[in-house]
């Protein structure tokens, strides 16, 4: 029998953590910001097809940074867990906290027992029926879970971005202001990220059963204003646009289904489709 060289567990864990952190730091960061009507998730992503942010369930979104194939695998697992639970029990029983715990279990298990930790950080966000019910869970490569209230930053350079966001964040932002704050924090002082290099999605409260929407590049560009995030006048103008009118409808269909390019303008908002029964109870109990 071969005897492996003894390596102290502290050293093993440290090596793995360093490895994961290095992998994550190579990618671009992502922020999630609470605004008055929901949660906006802004990430730097020049790809139009490989997404970092996605829908998990009616009120729950997923976002990941790091290695794409790894967080995408986690995203699909989350969709499956949520759909199974919603089918077996009720749509109201699916909540972000339970998903976040399951993710933490998986990531923790892999971190401790597998050769290679997952090089990902993920976010599970849930928009409540009321503002008080909004939740964000930030889960690290080793299964550590953070519960954030107002905003969170994932990925490399998180400290600097978080500091910038802390300065610009105020409660009850409107959507445009939240997107601006997120973009400015991601870019920092010296860099302005163009709308086409951003992937922005929102969980918009009271927008039908499925709260998750992606914002198109031109919508994002308009929110950022032609003169950049520091231009307050442009920001206010953009902010007054009613969001539900120009985001695709909240029915069963994802805006991504769009095959023609001109149909986002005439869709009517479907009120509440099946499943939204107007209940005001949040799914955010922590019992």
């Amino acid at each position, binding site marked *: 029998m071969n005897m492996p060289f003894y390596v102290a567990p502290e050293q093993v864990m440290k090596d793995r953590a360093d490895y994961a952190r290095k992998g994550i730091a190579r990618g671009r960061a992502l922020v999630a910001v609470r605004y008055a009507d929901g949660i906006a998730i802004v990430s730097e992503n020049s790809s139009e097809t490989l*997404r970092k942010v996605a829908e*998990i369930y009616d009120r729950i979104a997923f976002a990941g940074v790091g290695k794409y194939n790894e967080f995408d695998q986690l995203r699909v697992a989350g*969709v*499956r867990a949520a*759909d199974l639970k919603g089918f077996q029990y009720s749509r109201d029983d699916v909540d972000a906290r339970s998903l976040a715990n*399951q993710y933490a279990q998986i990531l923790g298990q892999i971190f401790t027992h597998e050769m290679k930790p997952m090089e990902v950080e993920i976010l599970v966000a849930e928009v409540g029926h009321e503002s008080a019910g909004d939740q964000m869970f930030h889960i690290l490569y080793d299964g550590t879970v953070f519960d954030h209230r107002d905003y969170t930053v994932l990925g490399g350079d998180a400290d600097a971005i978080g500091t910038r966001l802390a300065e610009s964040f105020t409660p009850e932002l409107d959507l445009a202001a939240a997107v601006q704050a997120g973009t400015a924090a991601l870019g920092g002082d010296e860099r302005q990220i163009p709308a086409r290099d951003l992937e922005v999605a929102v969980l918009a409260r009271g927008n039908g059963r499925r709260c998750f929407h992606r914002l198109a590049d031109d919508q994002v560009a308009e929110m950022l204003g032609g003169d950049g995030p520091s231009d307050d006048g442009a920001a206010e103008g953009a902010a007054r646009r009613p969001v539900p009118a120009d985001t695709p409808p909240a*029915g069963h269909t994802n805006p991504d289904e769009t095959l023609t390019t001109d149909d986002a303008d005439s*869709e009517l908002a479907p009120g509440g489709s*099946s499943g939204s029964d107007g209940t005001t109870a949040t799914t955010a109990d922590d019992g």
Partner: protein
Amino acid sequence: MAMPVFRPGDDPGTNFADLMRRVGTGEPAIAGHADALGPLPHATTCIAVRFVDGVVIAGDRRATAGNLISHRAMEKVVETDRHSAVAIAGAAGPAMEMVRLFQLQLEHYEKVEGTALSLEGKANQLSMMIRGNLQSALMGLGVVPIFAGWDRRRAMGRLWAYDITGGRYEEREYVATGSGSLHAGTAVKMGYREGLDRGDAIDLVCRGLWEAADADSATGGPDALRGIYPIVATITVDGFTRVDDAELAERYTAISDLVRAPQTATPDGATIS
């Protein structure tokens, strides 16, 4: 419930029913005949008609168990996603469960895959689900739906009829299913023409259900007393929209006026009050 994680090559993909089997929550196999259970609720007549902007899909509200009315306000026309709907006839329990699973399957596919199924893909998916129910159908728990939707690729409304084995038949004009389908279908056939507008198409399906209710005891008519009207919905480029009860009440008043007039006179000219 643990989060389901699979190895590559061993992954159920976008198939939700397969996923349920894999995690052990699938349905148990059953044997025997449903007659042993006594009369079970059955849902009846549904029709769909193409019109110039899309399709109109409609169903009556009655469910019957044997000779009894088991439910007066059943909703047989269900929005499956923003641009499609099913209307079901057959054993109500399995049918509603199938619709629930179908709705979820469409959404599940869309979320896992990142893009929605094509309308034809949805029609095929439903076909497979009916086929999967064949064992139950042979035992007397058949489900025979209609599927209708707006095809965003081709920019047109499309509709499909099914048979109990999952056979899938796309129709150009209209389809009818359920116990009153003969009468409803005939009424629609008589009134159908190319290029119906929304109002005409809604009138036509209302009339079709009226005739079915008139001749088939398992089909419910408009119930002004309780304010229960058939479910009628349009699916156009703007998506699924229910026609509200006030509009249906108005249209049914017009139909009943139309039907009443010639029946007030008997062959010898005496008037019946």
